[in-house]
């Protein structure tokens, strides 16, 4: 340290490698004082003029602002505000060409000066020594000061450094040819500059302040020396003129002999550097409370009649400066912002002056030739000789041309400061810096891509692991559950037997009776299970059923309804085969019954299709938790609760149906319902350790109630939100899906089920929504739909695997039931195609036993197909239904044997005509019933499709 200062005192400095001596051309502007220009007609203020973050605009278009008033604000530490350079009106805020080598457009604020130049209120601080460092730094930050030499690094960050600083270096080297802005500023404002240096000295508290200035500015040197005569800690260091001695690293090396290790900041070596113009701005900001709104800019070049330094308000368009300095037009117009070595040519004269603009160079054609022909590198090595970073420019150039990024990194491309010395001396006129810039940006880009890929991989692996975990947990749970169930069923208690038979009877009745009396079925099921409040439930159910029956009219809606149903059934698809294996239990049957009942209701209701969909959704949601809770909680009063729940569910479904007018309303409502239900649902498993049954139901009820309220409210909102919804579907659903799966990890049993239900419900909602949207946004939808569907479907299948036992059955039942209802209605309409019923019915009876298994298989496969085709379909818009049906039909035809389909068809028809007769054979056996139902469902589905085709 001491030796360094001794050396400096003796005027001995270190040397940096290389460097060049381009013609200085400073004489053009060095001898005229800085001129103040009139106000331009318009100021264009880029919101971001520094490295880091742009602030938020805090004024509005049309606002009148005062001179010095901040226009942006941000709490980000790397953001500095911009200020109004004069008073005037904000006319627009829009992207405009900014000072950037690529001619980039960025958000700019346009200010129309009112000519009054009226200041906002200022606090003039006469003695900055009374301020604390924090206050000073805050003032600097609020004044919008960022490095004015080149990079534009926010000054308050640079000086607010915890590191121990030995040297504060003030960069006044101004090594670029032509530029004299700092030179003139020093000559005219050295006292203020010294104030600024003193402020910095107070903040940074270095051991010594070194002002580095090239020896080609004798007047400025004299001014500085005079101003610092009595200040011991400031040393004016006159260094030999050599480009690029004004580079940060180079100047540090010249003055202190220190090299800043690659990739670290000068402060790590105890050095902080500030540009001398920044010092002036700091003094102005702290003492006079003048934010950074103007700067000295050298407007030079032989293309101008009056080249000179000017005080340019930030935001002044370059064209205004050129006009004021009398630019004479030439054939090859080239205007450079910055010096000839590192500046960049401007795409237009609308580019504004910004905080770092120290020079506008308008050269004549003779001065700077625009036509250099690049020829091959002759390996002369002159570039390497002059490179201040001691790189091998010629090798870099080869590697850059060959896009050999590894080699570029090895050759330390990123240590290139883009000073242009190499390109300056290259006899082959190779634009070396250009190649380096390209190389750098390519490498950066590649790094970004790699990072992204890495992240994606991690995510993928995490997901895989999670799925694996879930699967294991599911299998384990399933195993336990099935064991428990077997044990119970095999216990042979009378209770168990009773249950079975009762349920069976109920089912039989249900089927026997037709749509006219759907309520009876419900009653029957509930009545049979016989424990508590069956009558209530029955009564409710009946009442509803009647109401519904009354509503039946709209046939066209059925078409879409079926589609909805198909979509809604999809999540069940996978579970069906498994589910059908155990249709023994009561619950399953109960569920089936419930489902059927609902399905009927639905069919009845059809006017607003989406309404139905959401209703079923709700029902399912609400039923599932109940159903689940039963096996665990209700070793004894199983039936009761289930029924109660079913009843409640139905009741709600109806209520919902009643409310439905605006269909989209429903759609969105259901979405909300889910959101609202999830928390409730989560709470249930914890709460229900003991009184599981009730609470669960209560919770369900609560959830539903909320759902309804929401639905009501949503009408107003959805009208607007619909467009945005369709876009956001993806976003909104994914988190939900995630949350559900996460939830399932812990309280697996219930939550998992709940989640499953939720997932299903969503899938349906989506389906419903899609329709709504299809109608409107047919073109835009397909893409969205595809994206949205996939996560849903995944989640549903995953989820559906878990609570296989009950929900699956329920779902299956529901699906079947719906299919039947639809079919039934169709027949009512079609009522023409009479076929020999009795025989076929008999056939069924005999063939059913044989075909049991195959029927199931086929069923599930059919559903799967439908599922697939649904997905496909939804991704296409327009006449989706037809193509879907065709597909399904074809597949069915291929796989299914004729027999079964015929039987099914026959059964269906038979039912349509003579309902009483039909019901008889079905009531016999439970198992058979199920299968028949399945077959029937299929048949109906087909018919329906056909009819739709027609």
């Amino acid at each position: 340290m001491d030796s360094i200062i001794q050396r400096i005192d003796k005027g001995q400095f270190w040397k940096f490698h290389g460097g060049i001596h381009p013609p200085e051309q400073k004489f053009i502007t060095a001898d005229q004082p800085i001129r103040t220009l009139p106000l331009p007609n318009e100021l264009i203020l880029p919101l971001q003029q520094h490295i880091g973050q742009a602030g938020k605009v805090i004024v509005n278009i049309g606002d009148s602002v005062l001179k010095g008033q901040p226009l942006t604000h941000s709490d980000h530490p790397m953001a500095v505000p911009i200020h109004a350079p004069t008073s005037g009106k904000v006319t627009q805020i829009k992207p405009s060409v900014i000072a950037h080598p690529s001619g980039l457009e960025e958000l700019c604020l346009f200010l129309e000066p009112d000519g009054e130049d009226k200041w906002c209120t200022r606090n003039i601080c006469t003695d900055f020594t009374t301020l604390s460092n924090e206050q000073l730094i805050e003032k600097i930050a609020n004044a919008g000061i960022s490095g004015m030499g080149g990079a534009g690094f926010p000054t308050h960050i640079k000086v607010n450094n915890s590191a121990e600083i030995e040297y504060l270096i003030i960069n006044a080297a101004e090594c670029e040819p032509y530029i004299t802005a700092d030179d003139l500023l020093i000559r005219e404002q050295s006292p203020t500059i010294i104030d600024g240096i003193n402020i910095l000295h107070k903040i940074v508290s270095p051991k010594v302040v070194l002002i580095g200035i090239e020896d080609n500015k004798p007047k400025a040197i004299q001014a500085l020396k005079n101003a610092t005569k009595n200040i011991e800690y400031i040393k004016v260091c006159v260094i030999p003129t050599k480009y690029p001695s004004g580079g940060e690293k180079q100047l540090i090396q010249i003055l202190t002999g220190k090299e800043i290790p690659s990739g670290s900041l000068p402060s790590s070596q105890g050095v902080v550097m500030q540009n001398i113009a920044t010092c002036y701005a700091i003094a102005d900001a702290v003492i006079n409370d003048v934010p950074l709104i103007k700067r000295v800019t050298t407007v030079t070049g032989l293309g101008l009649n009056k080249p000179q330094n000017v005080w340019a308000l930030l935001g002044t368009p370059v064209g205004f400066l050129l006009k004021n300095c009398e630019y004479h037009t030439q054939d090859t117009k080239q205007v450079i912002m910055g010096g000839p070595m590192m500046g960049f040519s401007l795409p237009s004269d609308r580019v504004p002056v910004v905080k770092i603009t120290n020079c506008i160079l308008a050269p004549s054609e003779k001065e700077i030739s625009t036509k250099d022909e690049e020829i091959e590198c002759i390996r002369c090595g002159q570039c390497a000789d002059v490179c201040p970073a001691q790189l091998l420019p010629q090798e870099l150039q080869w590697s850059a041309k060959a896009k050999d990024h590894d080699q570029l990194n090895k050759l330390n491309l990123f240590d290139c400061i883009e000073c242009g010395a190499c390109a300056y001396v290259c006899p082959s006129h190779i634009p070396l810096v250009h190649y380096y810039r390209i190389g750098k940006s390519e490498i950066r880009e590649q790094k970004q891509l790699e990072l992204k890929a890495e992240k994606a991989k991690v995510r993928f692996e995490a997901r895989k692991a999670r799925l694996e975990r879930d699967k294991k947990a599911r299998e384990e749970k399933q195993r336990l559950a099935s064991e428990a169930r077997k044990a119970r069923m095999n216990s042979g208690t009378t209770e168990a037997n009773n249950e079975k038979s009762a349920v069976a009877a109920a089912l039989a009745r249900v089927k026997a009776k037709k749509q006219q009396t759907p309520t009876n079925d419900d009653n029957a099921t509930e009545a049979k299970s016989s424990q508590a409040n069956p009558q209530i439930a029955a009564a409710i159910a009946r009442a509803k059923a009647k109401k519904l029956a009354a509503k039946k009219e709209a046939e066209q809606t059925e078409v879409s309804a079926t589609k909805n149903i198909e979509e809604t059934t999809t999540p069940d698809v996978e579970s069906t085969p498994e589910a059908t294996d155990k249709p023994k239990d009561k619950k399953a049957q109960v569920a089936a019954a419930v489902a059927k009942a609902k399905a009927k209701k639905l069919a009845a209701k059809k006017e607003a299709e989406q309404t139905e969909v959401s209703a079923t959704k709700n029902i399912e949601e609400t039923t599932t938790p109940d159903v689940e809770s039963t096996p665990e909680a209700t070793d004894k009063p199983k039936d009761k609760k289930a029924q109660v729940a079913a009843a409640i569910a139905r009741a709600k479904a109806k209520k919902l149906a009643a409310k439905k007018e605006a269909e989209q309303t429903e759609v969105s409502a259901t979405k909300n319902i889910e959101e609202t239900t999830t928390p409730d649902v989560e709470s249930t498993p914890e709460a229900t350790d003991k009184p599981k049954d009730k609470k669960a139901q209560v919770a369900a009820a609560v959830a539903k109630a909320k759902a309804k309220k929401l639905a009501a409210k949503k009408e107003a909102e959805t009208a607007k939100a619909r467009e945005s919804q369709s876009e956001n579907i993806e976003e909104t659903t994914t988190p939900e899906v995630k949350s559900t799966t996460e939830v399932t990890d812990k309280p697996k049993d219930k939550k998992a089920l709940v989640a499953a239900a939720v997932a299903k419900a969503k899938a349906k909602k989506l389906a419903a929504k899609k329709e709504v949207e299809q109608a409107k946004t047919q073109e835009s939808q397909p893409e969205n739909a595809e994206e949205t569907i996939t996560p849903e479907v995944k989640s549903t299948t995953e989820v559906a695997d878990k609570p296989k036992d009950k929900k699956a059955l329920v779902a299956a039942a529901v699906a079947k039931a719906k299919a039947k209802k639809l079919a039934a209605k169709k027949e009512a309409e079609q009522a023409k195609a009479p076929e020999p019923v009795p025989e076929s019915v008999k056939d069924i009876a005999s063939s059913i036993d044989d075909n049991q298994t195959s029927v199931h298989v086929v069923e599930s496969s059919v559903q799967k197909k439908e599922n697939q085709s649904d997905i496909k379909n939804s991704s296409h818009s327009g006449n989706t239904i037809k193509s879907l049906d065709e597909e399904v039909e074809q597949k069915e035809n291929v796989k299914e044997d004729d027999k079964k389909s015929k039987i099914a068809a026959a059964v269906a028809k038979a039912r349509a005509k003579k309902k009483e007769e039909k019901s008889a054979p079905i009531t016999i056996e439970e198992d058979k019933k199920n299968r028949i139902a399945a077959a029937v469902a299929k048949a109906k589905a087909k018919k329906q499709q056909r009819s739709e085709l027609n």
Partner: protein
Amino acid sequence: MAFWIAISPHNHIQKTTSALMRLVIYATIPGILAQWYFFGWGNLIHIFLATTTALVAEFFVLSLREKKIPQQIFDGSAVLTAVLLGVSLPALAPWWISVIGAAFAVVIVKQLYGGLGHNPFNPAMAGYVMLLISFPVQMTSWQPPLELMAHNLDFVNTLTMIFSGFTSEGFSLEQLKTHVDGYTMATPLDTVKTNLTLGLTISESMNNTVIGDHFGIGWEWINAAFFAGGIFLIYKKAIDWVTPFVFLFSLFVFTFISFMLSPDTSSSTMFHWLNGACMLGAFFILTDPVSGATSTKGRIVFAALAAFLVFIIRQYGGYPDAVAFSVLLCNMCAPLIDQYTRPRTYGHSESKGEGNA
């Protein structure tokens, strides 16, 4: 107003590669004049032949490669190659020697490797070595200085000699080489080498007529002229001073050591410096940027290696002069030298900078 967009830096040194080449060509003029003065028209005729051939060959290849012909053909590199080749050939070698040599240098050594900037070998020297190996007799038949020749060798005689093998008076090259006293004259380097094998000491060889009063009649002046041209180039910053300086200095060191060890069989430094193609090699050939090392450190190694090879071959090898061979050998090493002499990048520690090699 839309502006012309250019890439920084916007100003540029006024030097160009072709100007550089031209400067080097001009710098050979003193040497060529000295050659003409002491050895007659032979080399000038060869330079002319080689240049013509080189330009034709260049044109031919460039048109095949569909390059910008006018720009590249006159970038000076082909002419420089031809001049250097012509300068180094024996003055009275048959015409086809320079034609083959120049064509080989341009087509094979330069263009086939990718043209200017991509040739690993110095084209002139590669051509020279190819000729030396293929046509040893023609390539070693050095004409004695004019002042020692019994016969008059004017321009016409030289021309007929080169094109027909005989002067207009009907003398063969062999006859021309014969001293008035009846023995065949060779170059000083040759003479010394032969004498050494005959068991004569260096100081005895120095009395040979071809050596004259100093270090070789004619040769000493030719080398001095090339030296002057080289200094001019250094002054003009067309070449780096490091390479010639290190080369000559190393040659001095090696010869000095050798002289210390065995004065009787070692020629003096000055003899080495001022004979053969020493100065031509030092200033005009080793400094060829394309086939040399690029960094300063690399150039030092490169030049020292060349000096060592020149010395070794001259002293112990089978050929009297060795500049061409050693240049080619060094060209081969240049990429390796570059690899191991990468400068330490600013801000990087020493070990890392080197380790990248």
